[in-house]
């Protein structure tokens, strides 16, 4: 579970965040660019977004004077969507961005920002060049007509045996045998699902740079909001077999697509493929480095990440 369970009306960083930031720069992401620019999109709360470049690294920022903290979940969702929209726009304009967590703020003005970019260039440059032209793609495989119990009984000797014993058993014994039967069914379905997922993962791993398995059902509230529209098209008997996210070179997008076409060609399977996304899953968590090496460069700290 990745949701943050801390109460939203209790600031978690009361000690270091409550003070005024006065002058700060809200960081969306960094990109590879040589020149300052303005980005044709509006940022969080309608702020205008600019790119401050130093040494070939551009920070996508807006001016701000406080953290974005609210007890109102809807408000936070709006902010997050704006945050993501800006990162997407930056990606389109400058190539693969390295995104920052929501509410990452650097204290100080543009001069301080340039200074920070110079200080961090040794960390940022390799990350940017490694991720250049690579994007994140999300894959979800959904099954509509999973084999029913009867089909599985025909295929599995153990189930068939239990089935026969149940027919001849006393009432009490039948109850216990049915428990075994159900357990075996669950095992078979799980094994089948895991085999399919593992095969897909192995196929993808040959083409893409990295594959991650995600939880089969997203736990996050935000994800629920984003997916609310999708829900309706799922039939009752649709089951998610696996959810994966991959980091792939943009030239390999078609290759990934044809692997997935192979999966989708199987009866009863549907593949949902989204992307390219900024490499959210694959970028290091800049600004929150737990090692403290580059940790918390913001001076203001990052607020709770509601994801």
């Amino acid at each position, binding site marked *: *579970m990745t949701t943050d369970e801390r109460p939203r009306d209790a600031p978690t960083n009361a000690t270091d965040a409550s003070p005024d930031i006065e002058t700060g720069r809200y960081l969306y992401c960094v990109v590879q660019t040589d020149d300052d620019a303005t980005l044709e999109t509006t940022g969080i709360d309608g702020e205008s977004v600019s790119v401050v470049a130093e040494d070939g690294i551009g920070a996508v920022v807006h001016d701000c004077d406080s953290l974005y903290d609210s007890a109102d979940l809807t408000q936070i969702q709006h902010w997050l969507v704006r945050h993501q929209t800006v990162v*997407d726009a930056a990606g389109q304009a400058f190539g693969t961005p390295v995104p920052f967590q929501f509410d990452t703020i650097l204290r100080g003005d543009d001069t301080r920002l340039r200074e920070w970019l110079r200080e961090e260039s040794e960390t940022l440059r390799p990350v940017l060049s490694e991720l250049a032209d690579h994007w994140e793609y999300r894959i979800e495989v959904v099954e509509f007509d999973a084999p029913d119990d009867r089909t599985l009984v025909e295929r599995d000797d153990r189930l068939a045996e239990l089935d026969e014993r149940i027919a001849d058993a*006393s009432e*009490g014994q039948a109850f216990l045998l049915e*428990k075994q039967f159900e357990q075996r069914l669950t095992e078979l379905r799980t094994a089948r699902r895991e085999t399919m997922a593992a095969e897909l993962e192995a196929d993808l791993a040959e083409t893409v740079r990295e594959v991650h398995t995600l939880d089969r059902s997203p736990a996050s509230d935000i*994800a629920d909001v*984003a997916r609310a529209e999708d829900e309706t098209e799922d039939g009752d008997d649709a089951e998610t077999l696996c959810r994966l996210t991959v980091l792939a070179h943009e030239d390999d997008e078609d290759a990934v697509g044809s692997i997935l076409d192979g999966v989708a060609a199987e009866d009863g399977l549907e593949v949902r493929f989204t992307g390219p996304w900024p490499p*959210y899953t694959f970028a290091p968590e800049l600004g929150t480095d737990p090692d403290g090496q580059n940790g918390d460069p913001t001076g203001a700290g990052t607020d709770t990440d509601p994801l």
Partner: protein
Amino acid sequence: MSTIDVGDGDDARQGLITLVITVVELLIDALEREAVRRMESGNLSDEEIDRLGQQLATIEAEIEQLKADEGIEDGVDDLRGDLDGLVSDAIEQLDADSTPRHAPGYSVFGGENS
């Protein structure tokens, strides 16, 4: 999941029943597995197996009835799901000691066109 919220006032009663029933269900699951194990071990007579199964079936039916009467079927399912998540998290945290925490799954926000 760090807390189990049982609510307050009237909610508290239902929350508490949900919690109790969930725990009882987990206990029954364990009993059923043990009963199956003993049945398969061959040490029980047919009569004993039948009695054991019938008793467990009765308990299970009672619990189902109780859940329906209280309208907490979904609540119990949700709590069981949360507890599963809790266990998975605990296992992941054990793993996380050796590997840097770089967990995917926190970034699924936004719609496809946003």
